[in-house]
């Protein structure tokens, strides 16, 4: 996959998110998501937060203010955010989109990411947070949902 294609895909997803009313955007950088991250920074004013659970907390505030925020993070940061999701976002039913990259999933064979790669989807199921694809972004009934992004989505390679 060429870099140009990755940027095109990132722009398409950014269009989808903005057209469907998502925002504000918060995030903590991730290599897999870098093309999307750059586009969201330039076009949607993505705010970088130094830790993912704090980004979830800020998104919770935005959600309470009536917005439909999105948080961009690596699945390692999703692990960091489990309690914020379990004790804040889910019980208070705060609508937000989690864009989570899947380190530790093929073709990412790095040992330090394998366990969270295996845990990401079971954790989401346990939290009761539904996974969606870019083509079925939930715009009608707002709720907490996750968009899972595999390593190859934007051309990442080990």
């Amino acid at each position, binding site marked *: 996959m060429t870099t140009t294609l990755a940027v095109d895909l990132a722009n398409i997803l950014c269009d989808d998110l903005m057209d469907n009313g998502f925002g504000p955007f918060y995030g903590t950088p991730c290599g897999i998501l870098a093309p999307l991250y750059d586009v969201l920074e330039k076009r949607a004013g993505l705010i970088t937060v130094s830790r993912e659970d*704090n980004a979830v*907390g800020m998104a919770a*505030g935005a959600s*309470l*203010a009536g*917005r439909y*925020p999105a948080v961009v993070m690596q699945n390692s940061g999703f692990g960091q955010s489990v309690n914020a999701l379990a004790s*804040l976002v889910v019980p208070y*039913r705060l609508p937000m989109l989690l864009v989570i990259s899947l380190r530790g999933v093929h073709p990412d064979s790095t040992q330090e990411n394998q366990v969270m790669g295996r845990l990401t989807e079971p954790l989401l199921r346990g939290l009761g947070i539904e996974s969606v694809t870019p083509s079925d972004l939930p715009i009608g009934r707002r709720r907490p949902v996750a968009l899972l992004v595999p390593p190859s989505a934007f051309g990442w390679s080990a």
Partner: protein
Amino acid sequence: MNKTDALRTIIATAPDQPIVFSTGYMCRIARMIADRATHFYMTGSMGLASSIGIGIAQQTNRPTVVVDGDGSALMNPVGLFTAGAQESLPLVHIVLDDGRYDSTGGQVVPNRPDFCALAWVCGYGRVYQVTDPECLAERLGTVLRSCTTTTFIRCVVSGPDSPVPARVDGDLGGHAQRFTAALAAQEGR
């Protein structure tokens, strides 16, 4: 000044502003003093009260008050770094500092950093320390009348708060909806 005195003063001084109360006794005592729709009781997610307040202040651009604890601020100081980076955010971050994890049995916190110095280094525009309710009311009142920058108030508290009121009950989703509706009503004014 104990926690109840401090919370009573904050609630009286910020009657219309959104207030985020940190987990544990903070929520329980605040709710007993006055259960207003502009109150958000963060019953879990210890350490994230300031992050929630930042999100609210950014999106509403209205003065937003966070009542945090020293144990919570130590658990996740990233909220301090994040708020301090935003010079013109109308956020008032109050830390009730008793040096204890009061809600879990009064265990001693592992460190007593100079929170005022920390807030200043993080970039908060105004930093105050108060030790009595009169001074707290005066500082908070002044800040809320002209809330143009991130403000940090270390509020030194001590002494027992008994009896501690009941836990926050009822549907938390409904609680969030009540808070959102109160913000929307203010927006429409």
